């Protein structure tokens, strides 16, 4: 923004996102979004390995089963879950379309979305593994 010569330009402090819990949660949500995109590349690579043949695919799966990769997956999974949950929290706070006369409380919308998410996830697990 244009400034007069005697104004002091505001400068953002390093670590501003540690200033309060909500900024930190926001940064983790954004980081979770990046992780989602990067993990998509891992899955794409899995398809590439599958196309390359059985031995390449098996080697890739073996790599995914090593402890460091498994631990990394746990962290990534937590970030992805946090990313999803934060968006479910926000849906109820921004309701451009209202199906009811009064906006639903955000916690109700959050709960409905989480239940739907668990339902769809359960159906996917059932389809892949034929039951848990």
């Amino acid at each position, binding site marked *: *923004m*244009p*400034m*007069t010569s*005697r*104004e*002091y*330009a*505001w400068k*953002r402090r390093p670590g*501003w*996102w540690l*200033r*309060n819990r*909500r*900024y930190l949660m*926001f940064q983790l949500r*954004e980081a979770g979004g990046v992780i989602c995109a990067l993990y998509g590349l891992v899955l794409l690579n899995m398809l590439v390995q599958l196309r390359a043949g059985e031995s390449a695919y098996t080697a890739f799966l073996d790599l995914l089963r090593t402890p460091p990769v498994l631990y990394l997956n746990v962290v990534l999974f937590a970030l992805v879950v946090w990313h999803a949950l934060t968006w479910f929290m*926000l849906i109820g*706070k*921004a*309701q*451009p*379309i209202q199906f009811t006369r009064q906006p639903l409380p955000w916690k109700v919308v959050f709960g409905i979305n989480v239940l739907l998410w668990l339902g769809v996830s359960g159906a996917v697990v059932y389809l892949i593994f034929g039951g848990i």
Partner: protein
Amino acid sequence: MAASDVVFRVKRYRPESGGRPTFQEYTIPYRSDMVVLDGLNYIKDHIDPTLTFRWSCRMGICGSCGADVNGQPRLTCGTYVRDVHKGAVTVEPLSNFPILKDLVVDFDDFLRKLASVTPYIVRKDWGDLTKEYVQYPEDVEAYRQQSLCINCMLCYAACPVFGSSPEFVGPAASALALRYNRDTRDEGADARLARLNTRTGVWECTFVGECSVVCPKDVDPAAAIQTLKFLATMRHMRRLLMPGSSSR
């Protein structure tokens, strides 16, 4: 320092001498019913008349006395010292704005952004100005929440997106745009949505939500911006599919 005293750490910037802003400490008498603005006024009246800050109504209506109090944007007239007193009360100018002097920041950029969303009723033809433009209670209720905005700028100070992208139109201007778009007397919705559906408009918002947290009037600008994103998308699709459609 006596037990009945409180320390105010106030950020000072003296444009005449240049240099960086620095903190200055003042020890003042504490009262359980004092607000931060009372403390600043005590300092100005009794200790240091050069301390500069804005205030006017002292009752949370004018929106002049915003400052960062212990790192959080607040109206100093509505913030009790007893609620933020943790050893010392730190008062700084609102974040994200250039400092003019001490706690006074430059709002010109916001005023330009506000003007860009035409925050008033726009009509193609005012017709007979003696005639009433009737509104029912539900018509008023549609925009009442956004109409409570007092332009205090706390939402801009809390917005990290505005901090990193100063060209972002920002929360208050967006909320006021929605307020007039929802007014049944207004005919300027299309032009406002065209302004907001740009790179510097509502799409910059990543929904941090802090603007709504710090808003002293419960305007909820974060929700207003998400609604505007939806309305801007609908306008874009309507123009794409029905080029000759009406503006509303």
